[in-house]
Structures are given as structure tokens and as C-alpha cells.
């Protein structure tokens, strides 16, 4: 057994240090001090910006955008009834857009700029002081990214996380309620959790929690908020009596496929540099997802005699969710095992567990993102071990790391549940959460948006 005290130095996303001043200072030293020793010292720390990294991170940011619009929107849209198609597309589109703007206004500063163990500061409110020349850290001390790239990349993470929650509320929630909830939950839940996991001095970062691309910050976080919302909203009118089957599974397949493609930006992009670390995250994203498609489909074939397309697509998303925290630190065989497990556990999440919970989580955000996220976060603590093909240090302790991972999961679940509860209470008092039964029967497309998806 390895020592309990030794934790591998995790490779978390580093927070941005405001380095332009340092760069200027170094340049000044170079210019003014001719002493060779001083010049060499300055040159050794001079940060470089690699064009390959910049290109990769711009593409990654695009890919995460592709995940949300149209990927997530179509994935969700195909799963609802035809009369609610546009409402779901619109909720995803507008929540994504809203959070992007809030990210620039105050989100980035509160998540990634200075602050304490729980929350960042307001030093870069409205991106104050950020210029074309300002730089953000990567995992390599001497390699930097333009800060704008890092801000944009992280903006898409925050925005898609809030858009994910829409799936739990679909088919009965008021549009205004979705928007107000998103603002509140983003501000009081996403930002502190993101800061604790990824920000400089963040509490969970300090504990050594491994969350490479956001299993806790994005998926557990959104899954719990969605589940709480499903309890608050109550069940859809007619649930269990009327047929509420997906209206267009080919669109769901299209969305799931776009999610898979986009997820390479999410996971491999989280490496922040176009290096072998990105390659590891990339191949793990490929393999874990494929494994989860196979395990979910095989399980359906065994238990129900038929493997469904929706099952295959759900398996893909489950695998993607589960490999998210692990993709940068586990080996490829570990990734495949994580994928296989995710397909099985998330199948239970949308069937047995869903019945136990009794909430009408419309599109199974908790069953897939919550359950898959928790499984992935815990398994990261197992398969990062070098003995299991991971990149952990020689003295990596699975038992210790599992404890740290569980702490991260626990804090996220409780924090998200508490903030979501308060936020839903506020929204309920301000706008009300649900549309009227008549509007629900008519469908949210016409009732909330004044248009229909299909003219037949």
C-alpha cells in the first residue's frame, strides 16, 4: 500500500494569473540590464504563446459551442413531444446565450480571478484590465494562452452547464422561470463550484480532487439542480396516462452525435495545450463513449430483448459524462472500463433509480448527468492509479484519492441542491414555475413562443 498522505499532484486546470505586468517587467529587465546572468534568468521565465495551442483552443471552444447549439438542443428537442419542440430549442439557445454574456460581465472574474477558497474576486468585473496582450496559464509554467481564449473557452462550459438543466424542467416550465433560475443558479452555484475545483486557491483544488474536464462542476452540478427542479415543478399533466414518447429520435441521434464530436473540445480542450495530454484525453473520450454505447445496448438487449436507438444514444452521453473528469489522468483501458460501467449505471439511473426518486425528470438529466458524473468522479480516483494504467504518481493511493473524490462529489451535490432549492423558491415567488394546465395541453411552442415546429 502506498502512503495515505501522498497524493499525486493533480493536473487541474490552472487559474489565470495576471501576467502581463510580469511580462513587461521581464522585458524591461532584458532591455536595461546587460548582465548576462540576469538576462539568462529573465529569459528562462519568459512565457511563450504557442500558435498551435491557440489554434487548438479556439477550435475546442467552437466544439463546445457545437455541443450546446445545436447538439444539446437537438438531443433534447427530439425527446420531447412535437408540441414542445421549439420551447426546448429556445430554452437551450437563450440560456446558453444568457450565461455567455453573464460570464463576461462577472462570471469569469468570480470563478477564476483571485479570491479565497470558495469564490473568486470582482477584480476583472466586465473583464476589466483584460487586453489582447493579457495571458492565461496553461499546465506548463512557461506556456501561456491569450486570456481571451481562456475566457471564451470557460464561458462555453458555464453556459452549457446551465443549458443542461433545461432537460429536467422541459414540457411544463415557464420560459421566464428558466431564465431567472439560470441566472441565480449560475451565480450562486456554478461560479463557487468552478472556483473551488479549478480556481487558484480553490478548496477542492487544494484537496487534490481530480476533475480534468468538469465532471463535478458541470455534470453532477447540473444533474442535481435538474432533479431538484423536477421535484419543485411536479409531474407533467397526464404522466403515466398519456403517451409521452419522443417525437423525433433521428434528431436525438443527430444531437447525440454532435455532442460526441463537440465533447472532444470539452475534454481534450481542457488540456489547454495541443500536447500529448490532449491526445490522451482525446482517445479516452473516443473509447469510453464507444464502450458505454456497447454496454447500454447490450444491457437493453439482455433485459428487454431489443437494443433501442435511444438506448445507444443515451449510452454515448453517459460514457461522455463519465469520462469527463477522468479523461486526462486515466489510461485507455481504464477509460473503456469507465465507459462500460457508465452505460450500466446510467441505464439504472433512468429506470430503477428514477422510479425510486419519483421525480418527473423529463429528459433524465439526473439519471444520465448526475449518476454518470458521480460514477465518473469516483472511478477517476481508481483508474488514475498507475497500477491500473493511469498517470498517477508511483505513490498514488486509490483509497485516499477516492476519499477526496467523494468529498468533491458530496460538496457539489449538497451545494447544488441547497442553492437550487433557494433559487426555485425565489423563482416561484417572482414568476411562478409552471405554465397553466391549458397551456401545457396546448404545448409550450404555441403557448410560450407563439409558433409551431411543424406544419402538417
Amino acid at each position, binding site marked *: 500500500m502506498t502512503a495515505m498522505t501522498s497524493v499525486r499532484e493533480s493536473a487541474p486546470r490552472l487559474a489565470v494569473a495576471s501576467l502581463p505586468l510580469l511580462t513587461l517587467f521581464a522585458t524591461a529587465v532584458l532591455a536595461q540590464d546587460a548582465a548576462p546572468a540576469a538576462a539568462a534568468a529573465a529569459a528562462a521565465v519568459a512565457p511563450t504563446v504557442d500558435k498551435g495551442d491557440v489554434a487548438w483552443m479556439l477550435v475546442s471552444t467552437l466544439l463546445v459551442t457545437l455541443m450546446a447549439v445545436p447538439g444539446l438542443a437537438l438531443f433534447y428537442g427530439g425527446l420531447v413531444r412535437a408540441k414542445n419542440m421549439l420551447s426546448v430549442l429556445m430554452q437551450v439557445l437563450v440560456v446558453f446565450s444568457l450565461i455567455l454574456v453573464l460570464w463576461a460581465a462577472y462570471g469569469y472574474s468570480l470563478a477564476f480571478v483571485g479570491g479565497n477558497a470558495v469564490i473568486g474576486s470582482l477584480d476583472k468585473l466586465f473583464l476589466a484590465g483584460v487586453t489582447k496582450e493579457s495571458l492565461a496559464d496553461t499546465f506548463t509554467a512557461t506556456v501561456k494562452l491569450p486570456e481571451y481564449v481562456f475566457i471564451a473557452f470557460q464561458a462555453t462550459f458555464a453556459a452549457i452547464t446551465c443549458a443542461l438543466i433545461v432537460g429536467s424542467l422541459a414540457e411544463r416550465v415557464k420560459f421566464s422561470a428558466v431564465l431567472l433560475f439560470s441566472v441565480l443558479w449560475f451565480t450562486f452555484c456554478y461560479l463557487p463550484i468552478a472556483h473551488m475545483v479549478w480556481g487558484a486557491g480553490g478548496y477542492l483544488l487544494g484537496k487534490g480532487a481530480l476533475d480534468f474536464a468538469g465532471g463535478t462542476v458541470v455534470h453532477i452540478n447540473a444533474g442535481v439542480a435538474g432533479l431538484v427542479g423536477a421535484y419543485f415543478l411536479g409531474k407533467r399533466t397526464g404522466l403515466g396516462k398519456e403517451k409521452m414518447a419522443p417525437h423525433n429520435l433521428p434528431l436525438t441521434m443527430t444531437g447525440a452525435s454532435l455532442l460526441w464530436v463537440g465533447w472532444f473540445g470539452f475534454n481534450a480542450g481542457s488540456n489547454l495545450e495541443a500536447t500529448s495530454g490532449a491526445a490522451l484525453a482525446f482517445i479516452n473520450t473516443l473509447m469510453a463513449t464507444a464502450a458505454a454505447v456497447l454496454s447500454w445496448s447490450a444491457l437493453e438487449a439482455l433485459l428487454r430483448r*431489443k437494443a433501442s436507438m435511444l438506448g445507444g444514444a443515451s449510452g454515448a452521453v453517459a460514457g461522455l459524462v463519465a469520462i469527463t473528469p477522468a479523461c486526462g489522468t486515466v489510461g485507455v483501458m481504464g477509460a473503456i472500463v469507465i465507459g462500460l460501467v457508465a452505460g450500466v449505471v446510467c441505464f439504472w439511473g433512468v429506470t430503477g433509480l428514477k422510479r425510486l426518486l419519483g421525480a418527473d425528470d423529463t429528459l433524465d438529466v439526473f439519471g444520465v448527468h448526475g449518476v454518470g458524473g458521480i460514477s465518473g468522479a469516483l472511478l477517476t480516483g481508481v483508474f488514475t492509479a498507475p497500477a491500473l494504467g493511469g498517470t498517477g504518481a508511483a505513490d498514488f493511493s486509490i483509497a485516499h484519492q477516492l476519499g477526496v473524490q467523494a468529498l468533491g462529489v458530496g460538496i457539489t451535490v449538497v451545494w447544488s441542491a441547497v442553492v437550487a432549492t433557494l433559487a426555485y423558491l425565489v423563482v416561484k415567488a417572482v414568476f411562478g414555475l409552471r405554465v397553466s394546465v391549458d397551456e401545457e395541453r396546448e404545448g409550450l411552442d404555441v403557448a410560450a413562443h407563439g409558433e409551431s415546429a411543424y406544419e402538417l
Partner: protein
Amino acid sequence: MKFIIAIIRPFKLDEVRDALAQAGVTGLTVTEVKGYGRQKGHTELYRGAEYVVDFVPKIKLEAAVPDERVDVIVDAISEAARTDKVGDGKIFVLDLVQATRIRTGETGDDAL
């Protein structure tokens, strides 16, 4: 005049149409419909949700025919649409009170 309504299996439509043409039927209206009789529907499973779909897709075929042709035409439909399994469908014959060809104003058998 009689009005024939037949419910048949969708994949049998082409055979029935050919048989009716041979039996001298000059016009036909076809609708895609759903319904249930003795044939069972199926179960659909979407993740945790299970739905029993009772209504089976069928073709409804309608034709107006002269009285003396009814038996031949009903036989023709029966022959062409039969598979000997539950779900082959049904044929209904109704009395038809009046028929008018809109273009010429002809009525009765002349309009068929």
C-alpha cells in the same frame, strides 16, 4: 349503388389495387389510418417509460360501385388482401344513396 369500405394491411395495397382494376373498379380513395381489431399492437420502451401502442397502421380504401358488381369486388379484395393471419382487415358494404360527377353533373351509376 353500394359504398365499399375496406381496411387492409398497408403492404397489400398494390395487390388489392390491381385486383380491383381487373374487377372493373374505375375509381378508388385510399387513406392511411390506425385502428385495432383482434390483432395486438406492440410495446414501445423509451428508457424507463413503457407505452403500449394498441393502434396498428392500416389502409382504408373506399370505392362506390354498381349494385351488381358488389360480390365480385368484395371477392377480389378478399382474395388479394388475405394472408390468413390475424390482422388481414375487414370489408364493409353500405347502401349508397346518390353519386354525382362534378364535371358533367351525371348522377347514379353513370357517375361512378
